[in-house]
């Protein structure tokens, strides 16, 4: 047979990595890595998602803030504080709202009201006030429908003392205490810290790279940093920086070593409480 089963193959498969890829959840195709979003600012991510989803123009946030105050006083009683419905309908999926861009339809609609359904006319408000309400409604739609604009909340829900105990019990067999010095300052946000300690980004860190030793049929070996492995080929960079792409013919054996193997095992058993506690603890190490 041309393709014998390599025992080492499993080890390589287990070494599959996700080198710091940001990820997002998407309609139809689920929770997925989405490297393209990795380096975007939150504003860019929101704009890209708005375009992808076809959500129309960006709401005017300053106008929406002004409109919010008017809305809360005049509309929230029936439609709920976030326009998601109360005794009156949700406005998030309202045709009147979705057909409007910046008040060109909604201003006239609000001025007239819908008396036949019990909605009063807002005839005394100025055009500017009604337009501000329209922008507020568009922002409510945006905050629901544009998941690229979602923000995690305050994820520091754990108990730092318990997290300290977990680190002492589970981490110190591999890591020196200095490894955690100032770790709370190394990430942009607590959720990045949580992501970063559970599964450290390998980046260019040689100490975190997957390494492999390839043994040819004639017994010659090459070792180095593995950059990719398939059923048919392994690519590695040796100690002098030379790249080798080696076909996995019969007789070629591959041994991989992943320095993050212990983290992979941890991910498979880590409880939510332990994760929250450790994050809370590490966040104190400023």
């Amino acid at each position, binding site marked *: 047979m041309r393709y014998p089963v390599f025992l080492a193959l499993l080890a390589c*498969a287990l070494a*599959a990595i996700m080198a710091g890829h940001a990820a997002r959840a998407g309609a*139809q195709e689920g*929770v997925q890595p989405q490297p393209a979003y990795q380096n975007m600012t939150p504003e860019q991510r929101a704009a890209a998602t708005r*375009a992808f989803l076809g959500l*129309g123009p960006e709401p005017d946030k300053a106008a929406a803030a002004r409109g919010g105050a008017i809305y809360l006083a005049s509309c929230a009683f029936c439609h709920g504080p976030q326009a998601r419905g109360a005794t009156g309908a949700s406005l998030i999926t309202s045709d009147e709202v979705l057909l409007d*861009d910046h008040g060109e339809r909604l201003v006239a609609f609000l001025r007239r009201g819908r008396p036949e359904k019990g909605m009063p006319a807002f005839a005394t408000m100025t055009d500017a006030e009604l337009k501000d309400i329209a922008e507020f409604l568009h922002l409510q739609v945006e905050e629901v429908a544009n998941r690229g604009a979602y923000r*995690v909340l305050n994820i520091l829900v754990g108990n730092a003392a318990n997290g300290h105990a977990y680190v002492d019990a589970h981490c110190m067999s591999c890591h020196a205490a200095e490894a955690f010095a100032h770790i709370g300052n190394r990430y942009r946000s607590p959720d990045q810290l949580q992501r970063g300690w559970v599964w450290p980004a390998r980046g260019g860190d040689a100490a975190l790279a997957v390494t492999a030793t390839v043994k040819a049929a004639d017994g010659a070996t090459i070792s180095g940093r593995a950059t990719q492995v398939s059923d048919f080929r392994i690519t590695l960079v040796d100690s002098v920086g030379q790249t080798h792409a080696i076909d996995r013919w019969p007789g070629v054996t591959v041994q991989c070593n992943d320095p993050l193997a212990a983290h992979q095992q941890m991910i498979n058993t880590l409880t939510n409480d332990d994760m929250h506690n450790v994050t809370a603890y590490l966040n104190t190490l400023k």
Partner: protein
Amino acid sequence: MRLSMGWCAAFALAALAGAAIAVSQVSPHVMLDPSAIGKAPTTSWATFNGDYTAQRYSRLTQIKPANVGRLARHWVYKITEVGAQRGAPVPVIKCTPLMVAGVLYITIPDHVWALDARTGDPLWRYDWVDRGGHLVGQRGVALWKTTVYFLTPDNWLIALDANTGKELWKKNYADARKQYFSTSAPLIVKNHVIVGVGGDAMDMPGFLDSFDPVTGELQWTWWSTPRKGDAALATWPNEAASDHGGGMTWMPGTCDPELNLIYWPTGNTNPVFAGQGRPGANLWTEAIVALDPDTGKLKWYFQVSPHDTHDFDNTTAPILFDRVVDGKPRKLLAQAARNGYFVTLDRITGEHVVVKPFVPLDWSAGLSPQGEPIPIPDKDPTVGGSINIVNASNWEAPAYNPKTGLFYVNSVEGKAIYYLTDSSAQPSGYGGTGAGIGPATRVLQAIDPLTGNAAWRHAYPNLNNAPSTLGPSILTTASNLLITGDDQKNAIIFSADKGQILWHRELSASESSGIITYMLDGKQYIIFGAGDSLYAWSLPR
């Protein structure tokens, strides 16, 4: 128009309706006998899954282990006429091609091609100018007599002349401004063109529509969530939550003509990740439902993910097959669900035969008396983050081989952290987010559907994560072939019984479409798309 302003300018000069472009002087003569739809595919591939069972199994044996090493590229058709689309920098063929009378039909969002199956040369192309909707994928067309049916991102059912691409009629069935969008292939059963829909950004209810194939007249609608007066409303806190409960129908169903039932997988519940506003099982989202194709009436359901909070979006194909169980012939249905459970049901009654995890998972506290997984609330998305599995499967086609008795699926094993981003009592939209953490490995599994156990597994080595958004589909044959691929541009053929690699070729992109096979002029072809190219393979003389 709030939701289409961005494109109005770009398409100001384009025609409002779609247009057919003849690109060949050759005039095909496609006429599909409706009674052939759903039969085992040999000289054609006439419906999305090849037949109504979705086994994606071919009786053809010309290509077999003894000669597969000689398999060669017969032709390649590369899409060059369509550039970047909204959210899609390059075209990716995610359809299952159809082939009837020497004509292949392929799609990407907004575009249909008819190709000469012998040469790959285009015969005609149909271009639609959408006014909204996602362009995340297009799964293919349906065919009936001389008509092709195509769904657009903005939810138009378009009937085209199969021989010219000329538009016959069109019908809009959902509002893109409410984030409904369409990617599916219609399913034709008797005189019903059955159409599903997608879209979960705005808490809308899923549905199936059935249309007359000649006139486009609506015959029935089935809603994925119960309406007023239905006992299933007890699985929702109130009618408004049910009316906004999701359950999209964006992958084609399967059909048992003898039982006169269609089997449809229903998608994720809404709000997607924030379940606190919708306590209850949330029927009939995340389920497999059996409907009467003539009326759209529900006959039975099995909910694979009661009260889902992980976008487990239960849309993988429910495959139909018959087996003898404990000495009795049984009509069965099996699904390798996105929530990680392998499910085998009696397809007459919906009663479960096997419900068993096929990937390592820990979100369930066991099964209800009906065999439905019971979720563990601690595994719900939370403000602080909750670790759970990524989708264990997706829309890519699984397969079943009656000769081996095995069910094949390219599964994914990996974890994600799920955050609740809307902790209010009345969340809306997604209300949360999920991000993969650590390795995600694609594993080809051959599962015994009577036990749920894998007879063999093949973990594809890959130092990058297996993408769940795009992956290889599967086709299997009577000659013991299993045709699929990896995530590193390799098309791979395994032996179906043992999982040995028999053949592979590196392509310009990873396989991205359904895989089909048929006999034409005495030659067996294997056809699939990889990125922007459609490949035809056969044995050279």
